[in-house]
């Protein structure tokens, strides 16, 4: 009687053998105590791994999502980059030059836009805002943006275009991805 190796048994355990081999090993295990014992040992190792994983499963840390957004916002492309991206190449250079001049002379009209390119202040504000909100309402991760809106301060307003999506909204990642362009 041909016995199966540990490697064969591991592949069988993971359903990674052909149907024919699967049937052969299945039949063999019913007859051969030695192979059966080795199969049981492998199967119990897998069971142990899964139960250990369940026992040590963690919830997503409550602040993690806000921290991701804060990092993204603080690393946002500069105002100049955004203007360059939006404006067609023919106008980009003169526009950028004009903008540089405006920035240089510190025209007050631009102040609100400058606030959005002031990453540390804005990110910290967003973070604290979220922390305060999370204390009051730990189940909501979204209110931070609307509270930033309501606060009326110019710094965080630039951030409110972020995650205003309702969890109840049935769209999937595929929908979101498919809707691009």
């Amino acid at each position: 009687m041909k016995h199966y190796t540990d490697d064969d048994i591991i592949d069988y355990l993971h359903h990674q053998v052909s149907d024919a081999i699967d049937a052969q090993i299945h039949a063999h295990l019913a007859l051969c105590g030695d192979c059966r014992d080795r199969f049981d040992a492998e199967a119990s190792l897998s069971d142990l791994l899964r139960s250990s994983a369940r026992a040590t499963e963690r919830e997503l840390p409550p602040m993690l999502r806000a921290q991701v957004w804060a990092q993204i916002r603080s690393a946002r492309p500069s105002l100049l980059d955004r203007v360059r991206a939006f404006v067609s190449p023919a106008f980009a250079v003169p526009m950028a030059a004009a903008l540089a001049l405006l920035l240089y002379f510190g025209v007050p009209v631009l102040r609100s836009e400058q606030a959005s390119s002031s990453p540390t202040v804005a990110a910290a504000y967003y973070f604290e805002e979220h922390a305060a909100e999370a204390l009051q309402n730990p189940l909501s991760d979204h209110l931070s943006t609307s509270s930033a809106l309501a606060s009326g301060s110019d710094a965080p307003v630039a951030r409110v275009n972020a995650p205003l999506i309702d969890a109840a909204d049935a769209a999937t990642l595929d929908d979101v991805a498919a809707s691009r362009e």
Partner: protein
Amino acid sequence: MGVPRKPVDPPSADADAFLERAMQQYGKATYNFAYRLTGNEADARDLTQDAFIRVYRAWRSFVPGTSFLSWIYRIVTNLYRDELRRKKGRFQEEIPEDNAPQDFGGAKPLAVDPIEDYMAGQLGEPMARSLAQLSIEQRQVIILADIEEYSYQEIADIMGCSIGTVRSRLHRARALLRRLVTRASQQETER
């Protein structure tokens, strides 16, 4: 589609929506994957954050209909490998894979590395401590095959290697893990 890529991708509402939904749906799974890979919560948190930031920047390269989890697990894996390379020039994956698993038949202590010591301390029970003794590739293949229950082909896609490599890694990792778990359990009862 069809529109030429702009040199700078401005953050768009779509990217925001994509990321927010990804974190809602897969944040916990990603964090747990990172936790099992690193063995501690602080590194898992950093890794998860960095992975989602990368998702945000590269969201256009996600192909609808494919597995998002496979994609982000691959991102997590690559980030973790880069991070370890950066932290210390020599680490387990720098050693040619074939001689990575030591023979623990003797009486020498299992944790020979400060990071391993740290991980072993963080993880209370024998299985977690044993997993921490494996090389990253070994730990990863076991997590993906036995905890996440991916097929060899899917694991090969995530790890960026051949099915043959997945198979041999898994076989070797399980053989080593079995010995480590036995030892860890014995140590547990001796305490």
